[in-house]
Structures are given as structure tokens and as C-alpha cells.
């Protein structure tokens, strides 16, 4: 049940105002990118994008399009602010994270603009919680310049096939090596840990493989500690697309279906670990 926001003071409209009947549609997606305390929120008429970065080599984006919200209005061309994501998540889940059937938390979000806090109004079972979270100057974000024309290799897998692999990654390995090739082993995940190396191969005709477009054999290594948080997005998703470009930059795009069957996306971009050449397999 949507809440009505209090009338804005001095006639100033909110540059961003949104209503959501089920706050979990937002909180579960944000959790999938929650590996740092801070996030940059970017809102346009199309919806909300929340970006988290680390070490200047990894970036995660959660997209919640305007259609997911019951109401979504942005007064300017775009609205950007930086916010503490841990605090935001604690507020969105103030009534608990348990998904009991029939109980949902309704959310109303309002933002007056630069320098103002983000206001959240949450309601469940007649109890109302009001949150005021301070916002900061938005950071400059990395631009991976990843577009479909530059993609060298692309596969789409059903997430269930990768979930166990990612949950059990050998974390004593510094890197996760990804091999994609039109020839054997087609798609291989490798780790090199204290106990030895492990390789997991997915054949191109596997049931889990929804699409296989590999033009060139590529082997790239990525810092495993940076990629591990993507496991959260993988756990929520039904499908994942894995793409690499000529420089070895990796794009992981997760298709997530929420409780109401609506589709949202989370993507992770990662730079390859520098000290590797293709010869070293």
C-alpha cells in the first residue's frame, strides 16, 4: 500500500520520488552488489542504477528499471549521489529480511537534490519507519567502455550450472582463470591454490549452455577476491552472460527474476590481472 510523502517544504519538489509496494524488489538487488560500504546512485526517467567499485578494477551495477516501481519520477535529466550502501540496506530491511508470505514492506523514497539526505518511508503491518540518510558528492566512476561491438567471446549459461562452482572456488588461489574458445575446452574455469590446480570445463553442447559465441581462444586471469562477491548476484539469478573483449575485460551480466516475476539485471565488470600472457596456460 503506497504511502503519501509529506508535503515538500517551501514548494520545492523532490528531484527523485519513488514508491515500491515490496521493498525487497530493491533490497535483494542491492545486496547482490554490496561488497563495499559506498555506492553511487544514478537515477533517470528509465530507472535507478546503483554502482559499487573496488580497487579501480571491479565495478558492479544493479539496475532497477522504472517499471518495477509503482511510481518513479525524476524531475531533472539525471540525479546522482553517493550513499552508504550498508546503511541504506539496514534501513530497507528494518523490519527484517525474512520473506514471510503475505508480509511485505512498502517503501517510499524521496530526494530533494544536491546536499539533501535521502528520505525513506517504510511501512509494514501499520508500523511506519522514517529514515534520513546523508548523501555525499558522487565519485567519478570507471568506464569500462564495454560495448557489444567489441565483444570477442560470449556465452550465456543457466546460473544453476555455475552456482556450485562459484560457491566452492578455491580461495587460496589468487586468480580465477577463464578460458573461452571455439575449440576444446570451450569454457573452462581454473584456480591455482595451495592444494593444486582445479579446472572446471563446460562443453558447448551442455544443457546449461543457452548460447555459445566464441570466435577466438582467450585465457584471462582475474583477481579471485574481486570476483568472489559476484557469487551473490549469481545466487539470485536464473541466467548469466559472460563476455570478454580484446583486452580481456570481463563482463558478467546476471538476469534476476524478482518475487513478482519481473526481470532485473546486475552486471559485474572486471579488469584482467596484469601479469599474464596468453602463452602461460
Amino acid at each position: 500500500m503506497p504511502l503519501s510523502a509529506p508535503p515538500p517544504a517551501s514548494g520545492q519538489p523532490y528531484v527523485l520520488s519513488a514508491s515500491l509496494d515490496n521493498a525487497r524488489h530493491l533490497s535483494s538487488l542491492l545486496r547482490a552488489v554490496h561488497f563495499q560500504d559506498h555506492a553511487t546512485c544514478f537515477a533517470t526517467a528509465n530507472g535507478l542504477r546503483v554502482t559499487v567499485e573496488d580497487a579501480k578494477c571491479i565495478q558492479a551495477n544493479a539496475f532497477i528499471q522504472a517499471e518495477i516501481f509503482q511510481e518513479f519520477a525524476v524531475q531533472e535529466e539525471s540525479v546522482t549521489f553517493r550513499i552508504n550502501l550498508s546503511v541504506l540496506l539496514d534501513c530497507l530491511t528494518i523490519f527484517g529480511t525474512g520473506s514471510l508470505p503475505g508480509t511485505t514492506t512498502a517503501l517510499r523514497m524521496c530526494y530533494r537534490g544536491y546536499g539533501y539526505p535521502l528520505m525513506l518511508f517504510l511501512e509494514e503491518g501499520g508500523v511506519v519507519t522514517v529514515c534520513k540518510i546523508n548523501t555525499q558528492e558522487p565519485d567519478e566512476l570507471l568506464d569500462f567502455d564495454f560495448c557489444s561491438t567489441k565483444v570477442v567471446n560470449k556465452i550465456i549459461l543457466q546460473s544453476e550450472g555455475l552456482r556450485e562452482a562459484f560457491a566452492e572456488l578455491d580461495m587460496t588461489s589468487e586468480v580465477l582463470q577463464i578460458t573461452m574458445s571455439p575449440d576444446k575446452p570451450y569454457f573452462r574455469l581454473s584456480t591455482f591454490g595451495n592444494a593444486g590446480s582445479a579446472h572446471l570445463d563446460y562443453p558447448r553442447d551442455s544443457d546449461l549452455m543457452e548460447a555459445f559465441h566464441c570466435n577466438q581462444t582467450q585465457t584471462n586471469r582475474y583477481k579471485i577476491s574481486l570476483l568472489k562477491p559476484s557469487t551473490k548476484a549469481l545466487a539470485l539469478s536464473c541466467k548469466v552472460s559472460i563476455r570478454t573483449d580484446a583486452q580481456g575485460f570481463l563482463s558478467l551480466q546476471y538476469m534476476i527474476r524478482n518475487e513478482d516475476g519481473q526481470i532485473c539485471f546486475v552486471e559485474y565488470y572486471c579488469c584482467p590481472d596484469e601479469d599474464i600472457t596468453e602463452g602461460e596456460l
Partner: protein
Amino acid sequence: MRFGAKIVDLACLNHFSRVMSTITKLAKTCTLRLTDGKLYFILSDKVAHGGVSMWCELCQGNFFDEFQMEGVAADHNEIYLELVPENLSRALKTAQSAKAVKIKLTNKHCPCLRVAVELPSLSSSSRIVTHDIPVGVIPRRLWNDFREPSVPDFDVSIYLPVLKTMKSVVERMKNLSNTIVIEANLSGEMNLKIETDLVSVTTHFKDLGNPPWASEDGYQSSAQARDLESMAEARIDIKKLQQLLAGQQVNPTKALCNILSKRIVHFILLHEDVSLQYFIPALA
């Protein structure tokens, strides 16, 4: 000084075990007072544990099938023991499928509560697991330290909201702040508030109801004089509140709190056979 008790009924055992779990969450060490008809778990308000105090009262008849005690003297038929409730709680956890549990005060090398758990066994002789829990005997001259605290001359008395909701909210707020403000009025409204440099969060509860207190001590008359909308408030340590709520595994029959503005919050949680009072002082 003698004490011996026995529980045979599994439901009573589980119930007593739950009570011990709750007490364990609230106090590292506390005083166990034994009388003819009741057991009390007492924490008196020392600075050492943040000034909180606790008074938990059980009718022995509701838990024990057998209960015998002989106090320090005929005219002082009571026993006061200092104990670590977690030890007792752990011992009871091993008794989940027990045939019987016996508790006895012994003094072989030092005073102990001996908990003997009789477990089912395939052979004719039972398996008995014995736990010796060291206790301190509190001498009579110190008994005055452990008297039942009086209900403070509160400003507002109000029923607590659904504990599950209150628990979730306080747990989240605990991630954001060390202190919490609890305020309530005589119109059945309660607010929980936290405020830091980063964030402020307020949860509003309505229609909670205010318990009617008998006007023996003139409580009602002073309450009637109070503006119904005006809030009484206290800022307290959020961890203490979270521990109190986390310890409630079963919904109490009655749950209320009394607020004396800026001084103290007095929680009363009543179950069928256990009553728990918990006092959290306000912070400066």
C-alpha cells in the same frame, strides 16, 4: 542449608531450559534466590554491568515435580547463591531427551549445584550425566542487596509492540548506533529513534494501549494529570535492549514498559509461570 529438586516432565524441562536461555542472554553472573515456593534470578544494579538490573520470578510448582529446601536458618528459610547462568543453561541443553533431571546443592570441595541428567539407555541401568556447577553462597548480611526493586514513579506506562517487529527494528538499529531513544505517551504511541552523523531512523508504533495501574499509590491520579500526547523518553544502551528482546523466544502473555523520563526504562514481561522485570537506566 539443603536444596534438592527434580524435573520429570519433558515440557517442564524444556520450559525451564528456555527460561535459563533467556537469563543467560541478560546476565553473565547473577544471584539465584531459593525460597519454599519460588525461584528468583536477580541482577542488582551495579555499575559493573551498565547499571541494568533484573528480577525474574518463577513458581517452583510449575516446573519441578519435587522441590525441597532448607534455608540458612528457620526464620530465614532462604538460600542465596551466586552463579553463572550459562553453566546451568548448558547443562540443561544436554537434557533434551532426558527421563529426569535432578538438581542438588552439594559441598564436596566447594559449593556446587549438581545437575544429574538421567538419559534413556538400551540397557536396564540408566545413563547419568552429571554437571557440577560452582556457585557462591551469599551470606545473610548481604541479602539486603538483592531486594525486589520497586516500580519507579514512571511518567508513562505502555504495552510493548509485537516483539518480533520490535526485535527486527532494534537489531537493524544496533548496526547503525550505540544508543537508542525510546519514547512513549499515554495515547498508546511509542517511537524508537536513533540518530548519528550518517543517518537518523525513527520507527512509529501506534495503538499499543496503556496498561491501567491501580491508584493505590496515586499513580493513576498523577498519570491523569499528564497530557496524553506528551512523550516520556529515555536514551538507553541499544545492546541492552537488543539482548532483552533476543532472549524472548516465546511471546509473553503481557509485555509492557514504564518510562521515567531521562532516568530509567522498566520492562515487565509476563509469561504464564514466569515474570521478568528488567531495568535499563537512561544514559546521560
